[in-house]
């Protein structure tokens, strides 16, 4: 067992982990159920999290690698009463069907918009290319990211 401290969505967790435990499994054990397992092999992307500012697949990260680092899951973005503009746009545009891939895809979209406030369709497609979705054909998600980007740009302008 290896003792680590990991910060998830602003809260510190001191845990003893087996060396082979993945960050995905740790997060789920800690109750962050938004982080999904679809393959455990780094292919489906349902387990995406933001690790120290970088969007990555948590099934490919060992829990011990997160020692002293901060992890963000979709729970950090918003909640049912106060959703993030991306969450709102995803729901309103019909981008959420079964929803299994969505929390991770929202984080991917958030990572994109933090670097690029007005992405093109192709840039969105590239940013979401690690998130397999079998329900939607991705069309509605691309619309949703564009819509949220617009909302966020307007919010920013209002704040200036």
């Amino acid at each position, binding site marked *: 067992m290896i003792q680590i401290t990991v910060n998830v969505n602003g809260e510190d967790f001191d845990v003893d982990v087996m060396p082979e435990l993945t960050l995905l499994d740790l997060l*789920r054990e800690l109750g*962050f*159920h*938004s982080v*999904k*397992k*679809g*393959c*455990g*092999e780094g*292919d*489906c992307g*349902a387990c995406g999290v933001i690790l120290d500012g970088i969007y990555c697949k948590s099934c490919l990260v060992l829990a011990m690698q997160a020692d002293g680092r901060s992890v963000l*899951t*979709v*729970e950090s*973005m*918003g*909640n*049912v009463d106060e*959703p993030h503009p991306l*969450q*709102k746009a*995803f*729901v*309103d*545009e*019909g981008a*959420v*069907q*079964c*929803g*299994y*891939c*969505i*929390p991770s895809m*929202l984080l991917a979209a958030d990572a994109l918009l933090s670097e690029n406030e007005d992405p093109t369709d192709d840039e*969105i*497609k*590239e940013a*979401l*290319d*690690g*998130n*397999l*979705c*079998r*329900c*939607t*054909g*991705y*069309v*509605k*998600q*691309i619309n949703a990211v564009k819509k949220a980007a617009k909302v966020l740009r307007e919010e920013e302008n209002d704040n200036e």
Partner: protein
Amino acid sequence: MTTSNSWKQVGTNVRKVDGMALATGGSLFVNDLLDPEYLFGAILTSPHAHARILSIDTSEAEALDGVHAVIHYGNVKRVPHTTAGQGYPEPSPYDTYMFDSKVRYVGDRVAAVAADSEDIAREALKLIKVDYEVLEPVFDAVEALKDGAPIIHDEEDARVIIPVFYDKTRNMAAKVETSVGDPDKGFEEADAVVEDVFETHYGHHCPIEPHVTYTKLDPGGRLIITTSTQVPFHVRRIVSQVCEIPVRKIRVIKPRIGGGFGGKQEILLEDVCSKLTLVTGMPVLLNYNREEEFVSSRTRHPSRCYTKLGVKKDGTITAIRLHVVLNTGAYGSHALTVGSNAGSKVLPMYPCENIDFKMEAAYTNLPVGGAYRGYGATQAVFGMEVLIDAAAKEIGMDPIEFRQKNHIVSGQGSPIFKALGEGTEGVEMTIGSCGLEQCIELGSKAIEWGEKAPPSSPSRKRGKGCAILMQGSSIPHVDMGAATLKLNEDGSFNLLMGATDLGTGSDTVLSQIAAEEIGVDVEMIIPLSSDTDITPFDVGAYASSTTYLSGMAVKKTAALIKHQILEAAAEMLGSSVTSLTIENGNIRGGNTDLTISDVALHTLYSENQHQIIASASHITEKSPPPFAAHFVELEVDEDTGMIDVQHYVAAVDCGTTIHPKLAEGQTEGALANGLSYALTEQYIFNEKGKMLNPSFGHYKIFASSDMPKVTTIMVPTYEATGPYGAKSVSEISINGALPAIANAIYDAIGIRITSGPFSPDKILKAIRDKA
């Protein structure tokens, strides 16, 4: 009939009822709903394609610390059943056992364990010693049907439970033949005859959530099954059958489901997981990992379709012949019905006096076929729509004009509807709504049919292709759906449905129907699907039935509860029911400011106290087809054989779109699946029948970056027998990519590709062979 203008809920993009809970990461799926302590289940599968188990020694596995149970054919009762989640009596053969002393494909069940952790469970599997007598396998469906082929189901107890053809001594899991008119004469009368053998390949549903089941006993000893399923009521029935416990002792809960597409219309884990809980008395979690999902769950039945068309110079189709050989793999799940649908969802498209249809489903020692979005239509429409193009070319007619001249229209019927049912005879049916003409018109405009831009580089050739499609909506006289509505104090309603939302949005669509019918906002509807203890029966989410069938059950229920509300209101007001109506939650008619909430409070607490509650059931009399026209523009790279799809157009008539964005989403999701199935999805087997690519790394489904430009066009029609004019939408658009792309490839390079997938090596070889 109410008109769309007056609808307040139907036809609007209300917020998907479960959308925000999903988007904020709520604990909604089976894996999120576990107790603190539970056992992990794991299944040992066969390394051989065909073998008899001579002996099995589980002593070491059982001795491993942390192992609670090991089950196998030696300690579990042998109950022949089908894993297909279909209505009872099932049309699929009873040829499956929880465990058997014979294994029939690489990935077949051998044993299962329950242990304290997943690692221990997997370790225990390695300690089970199995002595196999390896038997000769057969992998090709046509070979399997020949005399002298290895017999896959040589056990005595495999059988069918309805009067349909079944001959396990010849590996024939199902067979259907029907003929109309005089096909031979029809071909003789033709000016041109086109024919070919078309092959469709294995495919997997690839739900991002693999199959998962969690079972436990409640304090009273009832078995609680929380499972990722499309068919909770069939799960209850089949677990009852296989585990030999009464239905009343079982509760099946369907939480949110991470995609199904037909793959979860199957009882694959529930029986084993239940058994492990019954043996240990403890909660058990059993899931497939991605590899098991590919190999051991269900697939799209591969097919070989001998297809032939006769046409006259004027474009009249004189005869159609379709002979389908289906590979059902080791078990006959959905074999008969998928095979029948290959005819019934394809042949009626082109009314013709002479039709010959035959379907044989062969057992082989490969992974098992099952229900999969498209359900037979995907297989047969490929060859049919390619030959329609070929026939048009033979007589010098534009393929669009040829289709417009021949396709079925409103008011027409087809003898095929009556001839081909799903295990039983079909029903006679004439087409009600049909927007096909407009689909073709709008679609060809969107793709700029007839215009050809130059290719983007010298090694590339550009082409366009199309295909027209039909599906069905429910299985008439077989499927039944029911709903219950219960009024609460605040004027809200619990909508309890057996209908199973597996991610499609049906909870939202059905809530819209209830809200529209009653006259309230959709926010006042609290949908629950499905829990066999709480919700009424529904066959489940399959056969494109939820909106059309369950939607009508909800609509009827809503009408009943509305009447009860108005009766109570009339009593309160001293007026007559007929003078009252409901608008936006308020009772209208006469001078009243009464709300539904007032009526609820009155009836629950004051006078003539009773619960306002209603239930209704619905069965369908027909299965009205949705229609679609799909178009594709692509480039073929003649250096590499790569196909670059640049624009895909789907124009769809699903009747009324209850929720336009969800209907578009069904279309886009289905066509995306169709695209990667046509181009990149593929099961690759070695010579021993083992799948070599059971991962998303090597079984390639499209990611966002692979998607071409997509144009989705919903063509509104009104289907009088459906709720608010709706038909189905979920399946149809998976079928278009194979034929439309094949036709576009021909347009680009003059080569007809007759088997899927259109992989670059296949295309390049075809180019080389032609040169």
